């Protein structure tokens, strides 16, 4: 089949990462939202948000609810702009599309994806999959001396939630994928609430507080010590930062106050004390806000315990971090320390951190669509017109509900080759598993990307 220009859309709940095969290697980042700015008296759709000048009291309409696409009206508005000449200039009938969907996407929602791609935009062909399933196609784990690992465990901490996704021989082991309902949205809202109660009312300032979160917050590697430090002198200690809130009169961005910054009387200062690490701490301790779920380290251990016992060590040795919420400083160090105490003694624990965790999936997807056999994974519009969404259910290999009893209208492939699933409950009592990493000597080192 001749190679078609292919559009890659990593359709995140907060940010869409999109691009074309014949375009730049870096994606366009587009807000996945319809934003109303009261100051500008304008509504911005997706990519138009870049033009927004007044960031106060923005009103967001997000197509995603708790990580799943529910508002197709808003989504179409954003996609229309994205595919238009203003951004990607897609000629859909003569293009192929790769689009990502959330983990465990609902079958009835998956059908609507198919409908939009083929009935509304009329793409020639398309492939739909989850973000993590693309990572084996990329170079995140690549080591010049070794073949890419057959086992990897991805932590995808995004806007809506955090997933732990084990991948065996390039396909996701769905029975061991686990979710924590903590994502960037919840963290920003939590920070908003804390500062509104303690200092300034920021309840309507999601955008500003998200910036504050991204520039000030970190994951504490010693929670007790840091909490005590902040207690000593709330205005002057090793942790506290002063964030100068943006000033819309002079159109100045918000920033962290440096030593030599002179602050005028009109400037509003936000003191970021223990908020700096209490907020992202929720990824590691969801019960701090009353969410009855274990944190990320225990979730990883739980997920690995559901995998075949003899290869568990390989997953401990190939953990990868993707998604915007893994960008907090200290994330990897804290995770490594906690995993070390959860992993069997003779297991190596290695964590690979993407240098650009937000666009990692996009780059992997770009590598995938440039493989010569990519079209073989796609469903074409002709196939869709013939058998509807069944064509997609039949062909897409990534996530679909396994129909145990074989009932239901859909014609389904036999379940994809799963690893030997012995009783998952029993593998909990793990006798010493094999040493991970095929005798790899490297310990926790950051993968260095060359680009």
């Amino acid at each position, binding site marked *: 089949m001749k190679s078609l220009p292919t559009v890659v859309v990593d359709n995140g709940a907060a940010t869409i990462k999109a691009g074309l095969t014949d375009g730049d290697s870096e994606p366009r980042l587009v807000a996945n939202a319809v934003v109303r700015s009261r100051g500008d*008296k304008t509504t911005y759709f997706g990519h138009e948000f870049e033009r927004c000048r007044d960031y106060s009291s923005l009103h967001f309409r997000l197509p995603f609810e708790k990580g799943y696409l529910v508002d197709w009206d808003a989504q179409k508005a954003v996609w229309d702009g994205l595919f238009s000449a203003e951004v990607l200039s897609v000629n859909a009938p003569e293009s192929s599309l790769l689009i990502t969907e959330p983990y465990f996407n*609902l079958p009835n929602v998956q059908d609507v994806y198919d409908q939009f791609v083929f*009935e509304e935009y009329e793409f020639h062909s398309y492939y739909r999959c989850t973000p993590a399933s693309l990572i084996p196609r990329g170079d995140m784990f690549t080591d010049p001396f070794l073949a890419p690992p057959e086992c990897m465990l991805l932590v995808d901490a995004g806007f809506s939630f955090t997933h732990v996704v084990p991948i065996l021989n390039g396909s996701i082991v769905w029975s061991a994928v686990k979710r924590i309902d903590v994502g960037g949205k919840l963290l920003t809202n939590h920070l908003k609430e804390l500062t509104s109660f303690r200092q300034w009312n920021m309840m309507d300032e999601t955008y500003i507080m998200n910036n504050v979160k991204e520039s000030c917050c970190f994951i504490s590697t010693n929670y007790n010590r840091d909490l005590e430090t902040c207690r000593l002198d709330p205005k002057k200690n090793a942790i506290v930062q002063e964030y100068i809130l943006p000033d819309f009169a002079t159109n100045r961005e918000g920033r962290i106050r440096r030593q030599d910054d002179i602050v005028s009387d009109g400037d509003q200062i936000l003191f970021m004390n223990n908020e700096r690490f209490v907020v992202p701490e929720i990824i590691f301790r969801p019960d701090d806000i*009353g969410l009855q779920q274990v*944190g990320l380290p225990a979730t990883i251990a739980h997920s690995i315990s559901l995998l075949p016992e003899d290869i568990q060590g390989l997953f401990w040795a190939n953990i990868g971090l993707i998604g915007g919420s893994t960008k907090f400083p200290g994330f990897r160090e804290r995770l490594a320390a906690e995993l070390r105490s959860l992993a069997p003694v003779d297991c190596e624990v290695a964590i690979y951190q993407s240098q650009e965790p937000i666009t990692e999936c996009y780059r992997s997807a770009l590598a995938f669509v440039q493989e010569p056999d990519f079209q073989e994974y796609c469903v074409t519009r002709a196939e869709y017109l013939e058998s509807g969404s069944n064509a997609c259910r039949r062909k897409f290999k990534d996530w679909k509900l396994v129909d145990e009893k074989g009932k239901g209208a859909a014609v389904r492939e036999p379940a994809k080759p799963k690893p030997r699933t012995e009783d998952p409950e029993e593998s909990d009592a793990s006798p010493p598993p094999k040493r991970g990493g095929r005798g790899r000597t490297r310990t926790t080192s950051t993968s260095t990307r060359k680009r």
Partner: protein
Amino acid sequence: MAPKRGRPSRQTKASTSQLAVDPEIVVKRTRRHLEELERSNYSEPSTAFTLAEDDGGEPSKSARGRARQTISDKRNYDSNGKKKKSTMNIRTALLYRKNLSTLIDESGIANLPSNAPSYLTAVTLPPREPPRLLCSVCGYWGRYKCKKCALPYCDLNCQSVHDETRCERRVV
């Protein structure tokens, strides 16, 4: 004599039985708080999103009736201006927004066997240890709990802030 004895005994009772708060209320309050943390906007629900202002005062009243309006229709990026008619499926998806819990109900994933992976079964384990208590005012360790509403606080200072601000509002 009697009231003198009565008072201390009541006080100890309050502190030993720990809380006069129904644990169900606390659970409900936590759930409501977690729902709040998933909101996209603080004020008005996001469905009340209108474009009235930049439509140049288009009558939004009639639009809200039977003939629903979509925001995506307003945009026309097609340079040649021709507008193609969307299929029934697309119009249904655009006009009738369903929230996630409705979609989950309709998907039927609740009827799957409990070992089949799905959104409902993928959630991680509940914590084994009891939660650590953090001051609801300043974030430091919360060594004490409010008798009325069970929120933790760390010292007298935070207690007074708590009593003045959070206590009543949160408990009902």
